């Protein structure tokens, strides 16, 4: 039956068509997002309230959408630390929050309180270190963090005070709105100068950062 050739050809064409439309659509989406990165204010990638580190001599902004209760964020934490250690003069690291888990908000509040003491990164390290303990799936005990955080050399009295007085709802909702705008669906999601990191690996992050620094 000669029609079989037509049938098989149409199968191939359908698949090619699907791939072509997909590639076109994704290129288009990437372009839209990168266009947003050209604004001088940095929004919606960067907001004034966001924790920001690094000297940024080469104007390379690494944005991380982070959730302290997210296991993938914990797993990827050493990688981003390593990359940023290398290039903290050339770039800056901006942290945005996506409080997707039950106790994320509580932990973000702790983090933000610790930030007032200039101990943000130390605190984040401790939070991730003990994440399996305080964020057990069936039995999360975020209150344990008060004990663990002693390790970060924080002034615990001041931490309590700042924790009680800081209201992060506005910050979280703006972060979430920006994440939606940037089509961020999960954590961790990275953007380097508006370019999304497509594969979560140390090497791809390093490559992306270096490609922006040595442009």
């Amino acid at each position, binding site marked *: *039956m000669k*029609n*079989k050739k*037509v*049938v098989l050809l*149409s199968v191939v064409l*359908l698949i090619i068509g*699907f791939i072509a*439309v997909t590639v076109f*659509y994704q290129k288009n989406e990437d372009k839209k997002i990168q266009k947003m990165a050209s604004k001088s204010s940095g929004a919606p990638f960067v907001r004034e309230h966001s924790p920001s580190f690094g000297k940024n001599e080469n104007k390379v902004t690494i944005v991380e959408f982070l959730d302290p209760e997210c296991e993938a964020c914990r797993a990827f934490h050493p990688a981003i630390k390593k990359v940023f250690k290398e290039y903290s003069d050339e770039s800056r690291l901006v942290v945005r929050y996506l409080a997707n888990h039950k106790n994320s908000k509580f932990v973000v509040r702790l983090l933000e309180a610790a930030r007032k003491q200039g101990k943000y990164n130390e605190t984040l390290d401790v939070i991730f270190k003990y994440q399996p303990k305080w964020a057990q799936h069936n039995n999360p005990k975020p209150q344990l963090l008060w004990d663990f955080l002693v390790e970060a050399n924080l002034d615990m009295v001041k931490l309590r005070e700042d924790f009680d007085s800081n209201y992060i709802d506005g910050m979280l909702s703006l972060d979430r709105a920006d994440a939606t705008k940037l089509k961020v669906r999960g954590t961790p999601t990275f953007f380097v100068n508006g370019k999304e990191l497509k594969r979560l690996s140390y090497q791809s992050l390093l490559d992306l950062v270096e490609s922006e620094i040595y442009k």
Partner: protein
Amino acid sequence: MNSNNQISSTIIFICFLVASVATLGSLFFSEIMHFVPCSMCWYQRIFMYPLVIIFLVNLLYPDDKVFKYSFSLVLVGLFFAIYHNLLMFGIIPESVVPCVQGVPCSTVYLNWFGFITIPLLSLVAYSLLFVLLIIGKGK
């Protein structure tokens, strides 16, 4: 060669194209555009996806039995599509939407020209298949 029971391969071929476009289209919405499918959408997918294979196999190895397999799937899918569209147009109130979690089935993701929604596309696909198979069978 064609017995009276056999649906012409042209009609099956068109059916195959309709089912393929519906399948790939729904995958594009969920996997590429990241629309979260509601449970109604899942039921319509369940009855659409196998049709691609059924029509394809029949095109490659024709027999006269394709109608009973494909039409039964189309009929169930069509029922879900009609029901879903009634939900979308608000004819059935949302309180009886049988979605337990996730996205409510009356969520409008897409609205081309003011009336083309994803459930409507599904209804169109199922209706086309329904009509095509009836025509093919009637001949």
